[in-house]
C-alpha cells in the first residue's frame, strides 16, 4: 500500500466535511514527529521472539520483507521506548534524533 | 360518534374483543379507536377497554367517561365495580349472563341485553372449562345490539384475527348474535 502524502487545507467552514474526518487520519498525519530517541534493532542480538511487536502501543513494529524479521516503521514510531524496555535480550538500542 | 366501554377480567380477552371490533369496522371503511385501560394487567383482575366508533375521523384521545353503551363480559363484576358510571340514559348494557334482562335489576333508564356467552364459549371449547374465553361470543352479541357493523364482516374479522380455533370462534359469535335477548 502506498502512503502518498495528502495535503488537506481548510480555509472556511464550507471546505469542511460534515463531520471531523480526515482532519487527523494516521494515513495523512505521520505520528512520528514527536520522537526524540530512535529505537534501533541490533539484528545480531535479536532472537525473533516478537515481544517488542506485542508491546508496541502503535502499530509501528512489523515483519519486514523478505526475511520476516521485526522492523520499526519510523513514520509512526513515537519513541516511547517500551520496546527497548521489554526486549529480553537488550537487542534494541537508541540514538538521539537529528544527530 | 359512539363511545363504548367494555368490562371484563384479565384473561377473558376483553382487549382482544375491542381489537376484533376495530378490525371489523376498519374493513367497512369506518373509523374506530380501540384501546385498553392502560395498566398492568393481572389474570382475574377487573379490566376495562374502550372503543370510539364513527363514520369520520375521530379526534378526542382520552379515556371514555360517559359511554353510550357498556359491555360486561363477566357477570361477577356486577356490584363489584362501578360499571354504570357515566353511562348515558338510553344506552345499552350488554351482559354475559344466564339471566334475562329483567332479572338483573338495572335502572329503568337503560336498555338491557343478555347473552349466555359462557355457555357458548364452553360449547365451542374456547379457553378452558375453568376460564372460558367469551370475547368472540360477546362481540357477536354486540353486533346485534349495537348495529355498527355487518355480521358477515365481523365474522370474517374474527376468523382471520383470532390466534386459534378460527371456525369455532366464528360459530360462537354467530350463535351469540342469534341468541342475544334484548329488552328496552
Amino acid at each position: 500500500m502506498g502512503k502518498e502524502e495528502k495535503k488537506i487545507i481548510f480555509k472556511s467552514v464550507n471546505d469542511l466535511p460534515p463531520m471531523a474526518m480526515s482532519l487527523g487520519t494516521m494515513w495523512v498525519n505521520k505520528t512520528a514527529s514527536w520522537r526524540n530517541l530512535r529505537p534501533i534493532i541490533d539484528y545480531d542480538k535479536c532472537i525473533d521472539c516478537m515481544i517488542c511487536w506485542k508491546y508496541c502501543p502503535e502499530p509501528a513494529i512489523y515483519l519486514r520483507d523478505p526475511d520476516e524479521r521485526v522492523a520499526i516503521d519510523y513514520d509512526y514510531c513515537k519513541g516511547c521506548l517500551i520496546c527497548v524496555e521489554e526486549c529480553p535480550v537488550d537487542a534494541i538500542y537508541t540514538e538521539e534524533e537529528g544527530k | 360518534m359512539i363511545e363504548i366501554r367494555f368490562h371484563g377480567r384479565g384473561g377473558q380477552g376483553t382487549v382482544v374483543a375491542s381489537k376484533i371490533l376495530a378490525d371489523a369496522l376498519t374493513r367497512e371503511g369506518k373509523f374506530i379507536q380501540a384501546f385498553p385501560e392502560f395498566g398492568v394487567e393481572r389474570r382475574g383482575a377487573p379490566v376495562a377497554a374502550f372503543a370510539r366508533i364513527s363514520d369520520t375521523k375521530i379526534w378526542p384521545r382520552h379515556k371514555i367517561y360517559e359511554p353510550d353503551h357498556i359491555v360486561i363480559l363477566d357477570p361477577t363484576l356486577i356490584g363489584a365495580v362501578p360499571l354504570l358510571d357515566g353511562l348515558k340514559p338510553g344506552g345499552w348494557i350488554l351482559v354475559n349472563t344466564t339471566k334475562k334482562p329483567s332479572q338483573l335489576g338495572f335502572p329503568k333508564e337503560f336498555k338491557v341485553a343478555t347473552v349466555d356467552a359462557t355457555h357458548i364459549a364452553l360449547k365451542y371449547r374456547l379457553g378452558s372449562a375453568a376460564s372460558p374465553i367469551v370475547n368472540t361470543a360477546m362481540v357477536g352479541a354486540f353486533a346485534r345490539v349495537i348495529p355498527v357493523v355487518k355480521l358477515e364482516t365481523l365474522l370474517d374479522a374474527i376468523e382471520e384475527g383470532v390466534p386459534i380455533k378460527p371456525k369455532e370462534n366464528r360459530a360462537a359469535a354467530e350463535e351469540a348474535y342469534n341468541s342475544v335477548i334484548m329488552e328496552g
Partner: protein
Amino acid sequence: MKRMAIVGNHALSYGALLSRVQVIAAYPITPQTQVVELLSEMCADGTLKAEFVKVESEHSAMAAVMGASASGARAFTATSSQGLALMHEVLHWVTGARLPVVMGNINRAFGPPWSIWTEQTDSLSQRDTGWMQIYAQDNQEVLDSVILAYKVSEQVLLPTMVVLDAFFLSHTSEPVEIPDQEMVDEFLPPYENKYILNPDDPHAFGGLTNPEWYMELRYKIHKAHEEALQLIEKEGREFEKLFGRYYGLVDPYRVDDADTILVAVSTAASTARYAVDLLRERGKKVGLLRIRVFRPFPYERVKEILSGAKKVIVLDRNLSPGAGGIIASEVRGALANVKNHPPVFSYIMGLGGRDITTKNIMELFEEVEKMEEGKDIIWKGVKI
C-alpha cells in the same frame, strides 16, 4: 394500499418495514416492546430483509445502529423513557457523526416514582442532542413519519426521532393505510452517504478536533437543521402528491380569525382539535396550533401564526423543574422579538399519563378568557 387496524407501536414497525431498513438493534421496554416484537417476527419470516441485532442495553442498541449507519446501512431502533435516557451519550455521537439514524420513542414518564404512562419529558429532555424530533398525533402519522424521517434525514445527514404517546397511540388500535411498497420505493430511494466507513478509502472519523475547527462543525449541524426546516415542508408536499396526506412543521387549525390560540403537541393536540370545534359551535373564536416538529423548532411558522392572536395558551405535558413547560419556553422565545406580542399562558398538565380530556381543554380556554396578563406557569389539576 391496504387499510388495517393497528396499534401505534406496529405503525412504527410498518414504517420501518416500508422504509426497507437494513439493520435493527433494540432492547425491549414497556410500552415500546410491540415495536420490536413485530420487527423481529418480520425479520424471522423474511418479510423484512434486515439484520436484527440483539443487544443487552439501549446504550448498545444506539451504538449498534450508529455503527450500522456509519457503514452505509439504513438503521432503525425504538425505545422509551429510561431507555432513551440510557442512549443519551450515543445520541450526541450519532448527531456529531452526522448519521441519518431514525428511531421511534414512545413517550413515558421518568421514574422514580415508577410510571409507565405518557408524558413528553423523556424525548424533550433530549432536545439538545441535535436529533430532529417529530411528534405524531395518530397512528397513520406515526407510520408516514418514519418514511418521511428517512427521506429528510438522509439528505441533511441528521438523525430523527419519531415520537408517540404511550398507550394513547402505542396501544390504541385504529385504521391505518399501509402504503404500497412500490410507492414508498418511489418516494424513498436507497440510503447513500459518501461519508461512510470504507476500507478502500480509509479515514479517521470524529477524531480530536482543535478549538480552531470544532465550532465550525457545530455550526454545520445547526445549518443542517435550518435546511431541514425547508426540506420537511418540501418533502411533505412530495409525500402528499403520492399518498394524499400532508405533514408539515406545524398543523394550524381554525387559527385565521382566532382570538385565542392553544399550542399543543401529540394526542393532547388531537383532543384539543375536538375541543376547538365544540367551542367554535358556541361562538368562541379559538384555534389550535399543533407543533409537529419540535427540532428543528419552526420559529418562523410559530411567529406567523401566533402574532395575530390576542392570547396564546401553551399546553405542556412535560416539566423542566425549575423552569416550567418546555414547549412554552420555545413559544415565548419565538414571540420575544415580535412587537406587541400576545400574552402567553403556560399550563402544565397530564404528567405521568393523567388523562387530558376534551373538557379539561375547554376549561383552559374558559380560564384564560378571564385573565388579562400572561402567566409563566399554571398547574392544571394538581391536588393542592
